């Protein structure tokens, strides 16, 4: 009997790593297809941003700057979607721009998805979200300074035409969205140092309120700015996106909009949780096997 035990533990210690790969693959993929519900509790920076946008004066707009590229889409795109849903739910106007050319496609995708979600369920003109009235997609332009400083003076001058080629002056939304004064908060979603540039130029010069959504690895670099109040809250990694999604969903339910929309961040978070647990279980099992076989040797 003891020899079979020893065999198990020794074999466990030298298990073919492909079994680990397989377990991890399944543990991440299955929750993506059949998501289980976990409800992450919002951490302080996430709640801070949500509450600020939620209680923003009605005449102020939310501006989302899509400053990331497709390689970090898994972590950051859910943030863009959640922010759009939030603004449309509480009927705040939205301006969208991209500081990276590759961000244009991502922004467009998010806009298509969220406007479809709202408009396919809309009963009245009031319920639907309309381009040029409720939101605008300015597109991309360069250089960075022109955009960040220029928007403090007159946005239509930085973006004479929008992403779709319409003259921005002709859009009704732009009448009351002249410059940073009409912006309640600007959220830069980025995998680079772009949010810091927004501080250095837009905030230092014009005092616009800022926040950011960034990848998990760069979170440590941005915490100091949240602590100093330069960013009103922050969304860090998939966890941040998932927490925001939960807050938005609760808000929508309160308004009777129980649509059961997919929350990719939350769904990915179930994969994340499962994967983290799996790795921790691996470590525990490895140690049990190690100690059991060592004791037997003694």
């Amino acid at each position, binding site marked *: 009997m003891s020899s079979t035990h020893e065999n198990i533990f020794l074999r466990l210690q030298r298990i073919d*790593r492909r079994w*680990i*790969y397989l377990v991890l693959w399944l543990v991440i993929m299955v929750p993506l297809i059949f998501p289980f519900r976990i409800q992450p509790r919002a951490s302080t920076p996430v709640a801070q941003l949500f509450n600020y946008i939620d209680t923003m004066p009605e005449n102020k707009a939310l501006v989302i700057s899509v400053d990331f590229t497709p390689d970090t889409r898994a972590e950051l795109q859910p943030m863009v979607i959640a922010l759009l849903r939030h603004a449309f739910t509480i009927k705040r106007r939205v301006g969208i721009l991209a500081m990276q050319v590759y961000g244009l496609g991502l922004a467009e995708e998010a806009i298509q998805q969220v406007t479809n979600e709202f408009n396919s369920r809309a009963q009245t003109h009031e319920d639907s979200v309309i381009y040029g009235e409720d939101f605008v997609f300015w597109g991309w332009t360069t250089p960075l300074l022109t955009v960040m400083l220029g928007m403090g003076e007159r946005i239509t001058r930085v973006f004479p035409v929008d992403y779709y080629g319409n003259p921005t002056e002709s859009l009704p939304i732009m009448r009351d969205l002249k410059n940073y004064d009409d912006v309640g908060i600007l959220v830069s979603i980025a995998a680079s140092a772009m949010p810091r540039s927004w501080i250095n130029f837009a905030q230092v010069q014009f005092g616009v309120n800022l926040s950011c959504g960034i990848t*998990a690895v760069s979170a440590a670099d941005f915490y100091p700015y949240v602590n100093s109040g330069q960013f009103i809250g922050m969304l860090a990694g998939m966890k941040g996106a998932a927490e925001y999604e939960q807050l938005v969903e609760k808000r929508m339910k309160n308004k009777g909009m129980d649509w059961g929309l997919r929350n990719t961040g939350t769904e990915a978070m179930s994969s994340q949780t499962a994967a983290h647990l799996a*790795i*921790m279980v691996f470590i525990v099992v490895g*140690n049990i096997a190690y100690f059991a076989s060592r004791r037997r040797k003694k």
Partner: protein
Amino acid sequence: MKRRLPLLIVLITGIFGAVAFFVPYPAIRAADEIMRNDVQRIIAAFSLVLGVGSIVQHHMLKIQRRAQYYSYSYITIIALIITAIIGVFGGIDVTRPGILPTRFGSFSIHIQTLYSNMMVPLAATMFSLLAFFMASAAYRAFRARNLEATLLLLAAFIVMLGAVPFGRLIHHQLPAFAEWILAVPNTASKRGILFGVELGIFATSLKIILGIERGWLGGGK
């Protein structure tokens, strides 16, 4: 001459590189900018020739010798040539096409299309292998063999727990503790290592400029 001239050049360019940091005078600043933007960049562009020459030669040799798996070497060489032709002649800017047409109806072979649909997925997938490798490395190496190994394991464990919603259920302070580990002991050790590394950079740079470190000359007279 064959050794003296290069050593003299590193001395001069090295002193210039250091001085430019301290002196804001316009002539020095302007020279520094030319050094960075023109000299270094253009020379770097030429050095690629060495690299490309080597990789092509490496695979040609494999084909000549009929080495194991030599047929795959054709793939590298052909892919290199085709990509370079598309890139150099087709233009890099979608809005400014080059002399080579890169669009056939709705199908594009523009270098940016190649980049987004071949380079990006290949790089992202290679990168994502890390998820698996981290798991298997942790399984094998995180064993509580002695105190050091146990601390390594525990620190990793706590930080991982702090990252998922599950951690809060075990103890509500756990995420904060994970952050503390990152902010205090982790910072201390990183900083301690960095001092030595920066001094090493200092020492090596000084040795190169003074001509004491000559490994870069390669062998020979």
